[in-house]
């Protein structure tokens, strides 16, 4: 594939300037990219690669060319369809080329299109085995098609078929379509949920951060785990169809997601269910904020705040599978997973509003063994976290009074422990927790608590 730049006036202009400065070489000499060649394309479509290389033609100095080549190389690698990408820059050859002309040659090797994998994945409070097959570069424009089956340690199973493609050949804008089936058991709430559905998601970079727009349609089937499930849970059993529109905004400046040492995360999401069909109608908003500050000697101070509020729009209380839950080893520590808030005969029912906050002091292992190697996988931390989950009546005109409920009966705990990072997204935590304030019906863990998760308070 070749891209040739059109001859233009500015090209000649650069030509003159260059002559005056030809004695020194600091990369600021003017050049003109005449040809871009990409060698090794087989399945990949020309227009896709042209789009990634386009900016290179605008490079006016040798430095620009180098930087721009680096960018293009990164883009091509990021597309995840090439096994190797190498760059070669040469002076233009052939008849009719200008003296400052450059040819850029990208040598690529397309990766295998079909792959199968078996790996373990970590979800919140659960590990699972994932078996999958993937087809990369399906139609030659970095599309991905994958089929995955997962089986979790807590009776959860699921499979999904996902297709995603860059929009307008732009790698940062991605359209994803997924069909899925999932099932999960919630022991402390004594119900099982099977969901079958599909979503369409468009993720693109906005001026402040990453934006996602998503439509989701799910047929949910709820059933009791045992004959002894409490009646408010039993009343929720049956089928429902949720069709919702969701917007997610995320701005993440952290240096890494699992054990960040600096930067912040802001995440806001709004969900509107029931306006596009289905029989579940609610409006839900959630927010998350995390700040990290490097202090000294690799010690990091981190604080986070989360909250959510929802309102059922069909006159009833929100369904149990739409409500918020709180508590758990990577959430409000010192409480069992989803073990805070309203309950009936031992079954936690969730609620329509919550907040949670936590402060951490992270440090490396004492005396920093294995620094730069395995030692970096471990951290120690001391923490204090608090939260509350309760129902507020948003129809009540005395709004501040309702929100005051969230200030009553605040649960909190503190403790210390060790954490181990797994890959780039998950971590194990082993903590000693001391719950300081709880309601008599809460399910608390006083002492050692073990947890694994992908999101943390």
């Amino acid at each position, binding site marked *: 594939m070749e891209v040739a730049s059109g001859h233009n006036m500015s090209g000649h202009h650069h030509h003159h300037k260059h002559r005056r400065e030809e004695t020194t070489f600091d990369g600021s000499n003017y050049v003109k990219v005449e040809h871009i060649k990409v060698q090794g394309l087989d399945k990949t479509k020309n227009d896709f690669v042209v789009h990634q290389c386009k900016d290179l033609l605008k490079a006016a100095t040798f430095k620009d060319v180098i930087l721009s080549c680096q960018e293009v190389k990164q883009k091509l690698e990021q597309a995840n369809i090439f096994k190797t990408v190498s760059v070669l820059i040469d002076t233009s050859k052939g008849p009719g080329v200008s003296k400052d002309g450059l040819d850029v040659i990208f040598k690529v090797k397309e990766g295998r299109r079909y792959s199968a994998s078996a790996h373990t994945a970590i979800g919140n409070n659960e590990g699972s085995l994932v078996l999958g097959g993937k087809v990369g570069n399906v139609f030659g424009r970095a599309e991905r098609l994958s089929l995955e089956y997962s089986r979790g340690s807590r009776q959860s199973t699921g499979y999904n078929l996902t297709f995603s493609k860059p929009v307008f050949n732009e790698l940062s804008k991605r359209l994803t379509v997924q069909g899925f089936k999932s099932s999960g058991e919630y022991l402390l709430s004594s119900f099982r949920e099977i969901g079958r559905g599909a979503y369409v998601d468009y993720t693109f970079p906005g001026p402040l951060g990453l934006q996602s727009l998503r439509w989701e349609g799910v047929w949910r089937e709820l059933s009791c785990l045992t004959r002894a499930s409490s009646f408010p849970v039993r009343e929720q059993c049956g089928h429902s*169809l949720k069709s919702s529109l969701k917007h997610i905004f995320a701005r993440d400046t952290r240096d890494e997601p699992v054990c960040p040492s600096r930067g912040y995360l802001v995440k806001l999401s709004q969900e509107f269910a029931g306006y596009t069909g289905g029989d579940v109608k609610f409006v839900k908003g959630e927010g998350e904020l995390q700040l990290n500050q490097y202090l000294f000697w690799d010690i990091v101070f981190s604080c986070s705040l989360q909250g959510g509020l929802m309102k059922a729009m069909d006159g009833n209380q929100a369904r149990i599978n739409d409500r918020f839950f709180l508590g758990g080893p990577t959430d409000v520590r010192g409480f069992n997973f989803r073990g805070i808030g309203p309950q009936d005969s031992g079954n936690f029912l969730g609620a329509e509003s919550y907040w949670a906050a936590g402060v951490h002091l992270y440090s490396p292992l004492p005396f920093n063994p294995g620094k730069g190697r395995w030692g970096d996988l471990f951290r120690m931390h001391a923490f204090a976290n608090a939260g509350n989950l309760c129902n507020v009546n948003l129809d009540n005109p005395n709004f501040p009074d309702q929100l005051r409920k969230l200030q009553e009966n605040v649960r909190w705990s503190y403790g210390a422990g060790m954490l181990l990072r797994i890959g780039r997204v998950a971590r194990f935590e082993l903590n000693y927790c001391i719950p300081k304030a709880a309601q008599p019906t809460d399910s608390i863990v006083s002492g050692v608590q073990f947890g694994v998760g992908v999101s943390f308070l």
Partner: protein
Amino acid sequence: MMASLVEEAAQIHAQGLESNLQGGGIDEELELYQPFQKDQITLPEEVQCMAVKTLLHMCKIPFSLRLRANAENMSPSGGVPFIKVGPQIVSEFDPIVEYLDLKGISLSRELSGSQRSEMKAYMALTVNRLYSAEVYLSWCCETIANKVTKPRYGAPYPWPLNKLLPWYKQREAKKYLKVQGWLEKSQDEVYEELKMACKALSDKLDDQYYFFLDRPSELDALVFGHLYSLLTFQLIDDKMADIVNSFPTLTRFVERIQENYFIAPEMDDV
């Protein structure tokens, strides 16, 4: 549709409270959960609910009727109706009979051993045959399934669940009939079975008031549930009602039970 369901629920709730005032053998309030009667319940479910309600009336146990679109999913066994007494939940006719027996309430206490086993035999054989015929006609007779049963079963759900769930339920019904050996039968054969079951019951009843002795037994409640529903449930034709009607002994039996155990306004509603 929702408005009529709510109305119906309120009305029946009020009646339930009334009948509750009479007092009964179980200390706590007994609640009976079933699907909505007007536009949701299917014939085989209606039969079961009617039988349990009759049983409770015969035992003079007051109850409040709770109508829930998801009654079937709430039931621990997946069958309607179910009763709730305090924290206890018991579903379907036979377990409810056993439960009441444990509480010292039984209609068949005064039957002799042989009478009791005869009753059990009738409940298992004849009544089972009626049930299979009802399931067959509701779900396997294409016109009835498509015009009555499926739309009713899917009524509480939005599209596409209102198509999917009845389809699943139909598959389940066919599986049940296959096990029973009924799936291969033709429609005429099923009507013939229905006729034979009615004849067996009519012969047993003869000119007596009830099936055994001078008092109602569980069999009476169960048979009434079936016959009353067959006579009154709105299907596209009256073929089933006509079969029952061809046995005057049985229609007189239905009228008698209705007069003795159901107050007039409640009957209008069901």
